[in-house]
């Protein structure tokens, strides 16, 4: 795609694909739904839609692709990537699964980015879920296509399908070595009945030729030449640009305004009052005043000239420093018991020694390099959106809601995302663009400035944890109590204030400790701003608190912290719900038999990383190392950070070791890249991260202060990444590298300076 040109809607291609090219197309559906589906040229490709997709289908017949794989008569294989590309390299990874099952040559595979549509199943690119959530389903898509190509070849040769293989873009009749290319078989295969998914056999792992190998980063050439089209780069004929003045305080509204001066700025066309959101805010637009102009600069200047006064509303008293004190009081009292094993209160009473500490982590920003942006075009009732969205289906729903129309009238095209980290799973900017496009009767791009991005973020929640351990006379840890207070993301949706199972699965209920008496309590915390998911979410502060506290226990016990970890984890084993002391564990949406809470895997990465880092020699080498480990998103990470004082006397991280067990790995180079990036991301929040709020408004406004991020000179010069080889079901990759970074650094800082940090950030601004 050339920069500076209109992005051609993918549906133009896919409509042709479904309706005129013909060939073999296999759609996505739940296993039971596909049984009598046929694929005939000239018909929308077709599985019988699922209940969820049926509604969509009936409203938008033939307009949306409902296919993952297409084989054209010229042999071109088109694979749809239904997850958003935001830097994790998913477009270089997921299609490989399908291609390998199919037996396709990667050079003849085209990758097509999906629009938002329920026919693809879950598209919310969030929760480190793309591989772990689709590993088997997508293989099944490829395997189904392979089965049909083989069936067509077998029919032509009049042989048994079992005598045929698919590899290197051809079907081979093994006994006679006859071959037919995929393209030669595409039309015939397309006329066959789609086999029952239960009858489709996946290849043995060893037959997946590219999975687990070095894979090319398919979008790299576009990135390095400026040709990749991000949300901000979409250009439509007649497009106007809007910059919006949003209420600085959540729940605030316009008290009065005068558009005169803004309208006097050359290039400014309109000043438009945005609809006022009502609680719960969810992903609604923020209200305020939009300045719509011929181009970005005029819109920015127009907004600077706006004369507007705000009525700040009920959150105008929110002060994050004072709130910190409230949270500290909250965890000083018993909370609601969320997890209990043994009798921790009695054990704490009888303990020979109590160790206790309270940890605080402030609100944290997303600040992706590309500020939120979206382009909308209306055509009668129909609305098209181009946006860097992590969640195109939610964007579709929200835009339809904002416009008061049906989802069938809304189409969401996913561009490249210039970073996202959870911010772009919200659809507020998409709805803003849609509302404005309708109002002005022209395509509109809504552009957040960086200040808009920082001040109107769905910040990561703020938290305080109080950890208490009881030791017996021998120093053995016999009791563990974890009190946690943080406003839940549920508050965004108007759900009950207290964190629930979805929140506590992240480092509270799933903590794989073998302490005989253990509890977790949830204490009160009320939300006063919009909060949302940030890369690794609650795990950030749970891992910081637990990882720091384990280090404090090591100081108290005068033993090596690795040994305290191993004592806490106990013998290698998979934890039962009763040992965890919970009735239920969300477990990131996966059953425990497939993805157990495995103390052995956490032990393993701890042992590996300490070995790699020369942990036992650190005193002789004069190094200040810190250790932390954490299970999140079904993967296991242990990390050692080395901290030194820089020439200017500042704390600097000079070397990091990571051991990572995510089970089955598809694209090892991207896994490494994610871990390298997670270290930097974790360092930014550990060293500098801290959004502060005064009078209800966020104080930061750009990459400064609590919204500062690590620079290249602050990145560790040496990074060692160890990936555990495993056949276990794939776990998450994008997020699990982040949580252990902050505690490992804080512990290394303690080793260097003797100063214990119980609060982030470690350095201010």
């Amino acid at each position: 795609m050339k920069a500076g040109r209109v992005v051609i809607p993918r549906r133009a291609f896919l409509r042709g694909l479904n309706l005129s090219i013909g060939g073999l197309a296999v759609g996505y559906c739940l296993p039971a739904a596909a049984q009598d589906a046929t694929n005939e040229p000239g018909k929308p490709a077709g599985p019988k839609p699922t209940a969820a997709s049926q509604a969509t289908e009936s409203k938008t017949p033939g307009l949306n692709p409902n296919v993952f794989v297409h084989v054209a008569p010229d042999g071109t294989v088109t694979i749809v990537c239904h997850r958003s590309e935001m830097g994790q390299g998913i477009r270089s990874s997921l299609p490989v699964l399908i291609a390998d099952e199919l037996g396709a040559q990667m050079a003849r595979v085209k990758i097509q980015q999906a629009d938002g549509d329920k026919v693809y199943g879950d598209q919310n690119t969030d929760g480190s879920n793309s591989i772990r959530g689709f590993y088997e389903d997508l293989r099944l898509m490829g395997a189904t296509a392979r089965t049909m190509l083989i069936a067509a070849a077998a029919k032509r040769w009049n042989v048994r399908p079992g005598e045929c293989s698919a590899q290197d873009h051809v079907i081979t009749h093994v006994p006679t070595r006859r071959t037919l290319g995929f393209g030669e078989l595409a039309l015939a295969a397309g006329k066959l009945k789609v086999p029952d998914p239960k009858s489709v056999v996946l290849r043995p792992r060893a037959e997946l030729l590219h999975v687990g190998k070095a894979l090319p980063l398919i979008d790299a050439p576009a990135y390095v030449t400026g040709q990749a089209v991000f949300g901000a780069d979409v250009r439509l004929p007649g497009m106007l640009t809007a910059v919006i003045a949003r209420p600085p305080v959540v729940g605030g509204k316009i008290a009065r305004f005068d558009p005169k001066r803004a309208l006097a700025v050359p290039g400014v066309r309109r000043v438009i009052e945005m609809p006022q959101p009502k609680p719960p805010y969810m992903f609604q637009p923020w209200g305020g005043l939009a300045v719509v102009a011929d181009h970005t600069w005029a819109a920015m200047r127009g907004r600077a000239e706006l004369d507007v006064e705000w009525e700040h509303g009920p959150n105008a008293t929110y002060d994050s420093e004072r709130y910190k004190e409230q949270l500290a009081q909250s965890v000083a009292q018993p909370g609601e018991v969320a997890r209990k094993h043994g009798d921790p209160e009695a054990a704490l009473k009888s303990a020979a020694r109590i160790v206790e500490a309270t940890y605080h982590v402030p609100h944290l920003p997303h600040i992706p390099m590309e500020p939120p942006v979206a382009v909308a075009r209306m055509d009668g009732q129909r609305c098209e959106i181009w946006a860097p969205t992590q969640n195109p289906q939610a964007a579709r729903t929200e835009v339809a809601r904002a416009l008061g129309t049906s989802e069938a009238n809304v189409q969401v095209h996913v561009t490249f995302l210039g970073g996202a980290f959870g911010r772009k799973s919200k659809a507020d900017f998409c709805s803003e663009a849609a509302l404005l496009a309708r109002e002005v009767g022209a395509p509109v791009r809504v552009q957040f400035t960086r200040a808009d991005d920082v001040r109107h973020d769905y910040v990561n929640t703020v938290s305080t944890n109080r950890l208490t351990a009881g030791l017996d006379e021998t120093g053995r840890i016999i009791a563990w109590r974890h009190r946690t207070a943080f406003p839940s993301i549920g508050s965004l949706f108007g759900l009950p204030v207290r964190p629930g199972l979805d929140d506590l699965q992240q480092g509270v209920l799933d903590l794989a400790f073998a302490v005989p008496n253990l509890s977790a309590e949830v204490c009160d915390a009320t939300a006063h701003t919009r909060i949302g998911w940030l890369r690794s979410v609650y795990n950030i502060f749970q891992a910081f608190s637990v990882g720091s506290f384990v280090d404090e226990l090591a100081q108290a016990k005068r033993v090596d912290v690795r040994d305290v970890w191993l004592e806490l984890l106990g013998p290698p084993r998979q934890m039962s719900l009763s040992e965890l002391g919970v009735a239920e564990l969300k477990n990131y949406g996966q059953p425990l038999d497939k993805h157990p809470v495995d103390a052995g895997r956490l032990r393993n990465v701890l042992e590996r990383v300490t070995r790699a880092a020369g942990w036992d020699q650190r005193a002789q080498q004069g190094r200040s190392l810190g250790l932390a480990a954490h299970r999140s998103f079904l993967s296991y990470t242990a990390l050692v950070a080395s901290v030194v004082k820089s020439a200017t006397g500042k704390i600097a991280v000079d070397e990091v070791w990571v051991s990572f067990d995510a089970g089955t790995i598809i694209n090892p180079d991207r896994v490494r890249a994610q871990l390298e990036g997670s270290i930097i991301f974790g360092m930014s929040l550990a060293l500098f991260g801290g959004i502060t709020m005064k009078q209800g408004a966020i104080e930061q406004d750009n990459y400064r202060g609590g919204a500062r991020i690590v620079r290249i000179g602050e990145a560790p010069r040496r990074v060692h990444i160890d990936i555990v080889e495993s056949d276990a079901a794939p776990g998450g990759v994008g997020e699990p590298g982040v949580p252990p970074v902050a505690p490992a650094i804080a512990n290394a800082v303690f080793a260097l300076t003797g100063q214990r940090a119980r609060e982030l950030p470690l350095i201010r601004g």
Partner: protein
Amino acid sequence: MSITLRVNGTEHHVDVDPEMPLLWVLRDVLNLTGTKYGCGEALCGACTVHVDGHVVRSCVMPIRRAEGTSVTTIEGLSPDGSHPLQKAWVEMGVPQCGFCQAGQIMTAAGLLKKFPRPTDEQIDQSLAGNLCRCGTYTRIRAAIKAMAGDKS
């Protein structure tokens, strides 16, 4: 006010507010969207271009100051993505989301003109103003050094 400048070898006359930053002229007037908006205050480096061979943050350079200059953007760094840095970036798998990479490469290209075999310190100093939220710094450094012939 009409301003004349060369961009990637082509002469342009643009009639805009003289205070409009070069960035927005490139992106909104000339449709060269490879140069990115990230912060608007020269804090992040996503908008980096070369003006008469100098590394410049285009988001804070009013277009009036570009009168008569020759500007190179990522689209003009090489005709076909074959600049050694672009090749090294692809080879080493540097980009993650890719948004900051045009700015990183333009700054690195400026650095290599001055120091063909830069030290770590020179890399750190020169690229200090180019932020990457994905955290690709490790590979950026490795790619620059590999390209400059340092295989360590």
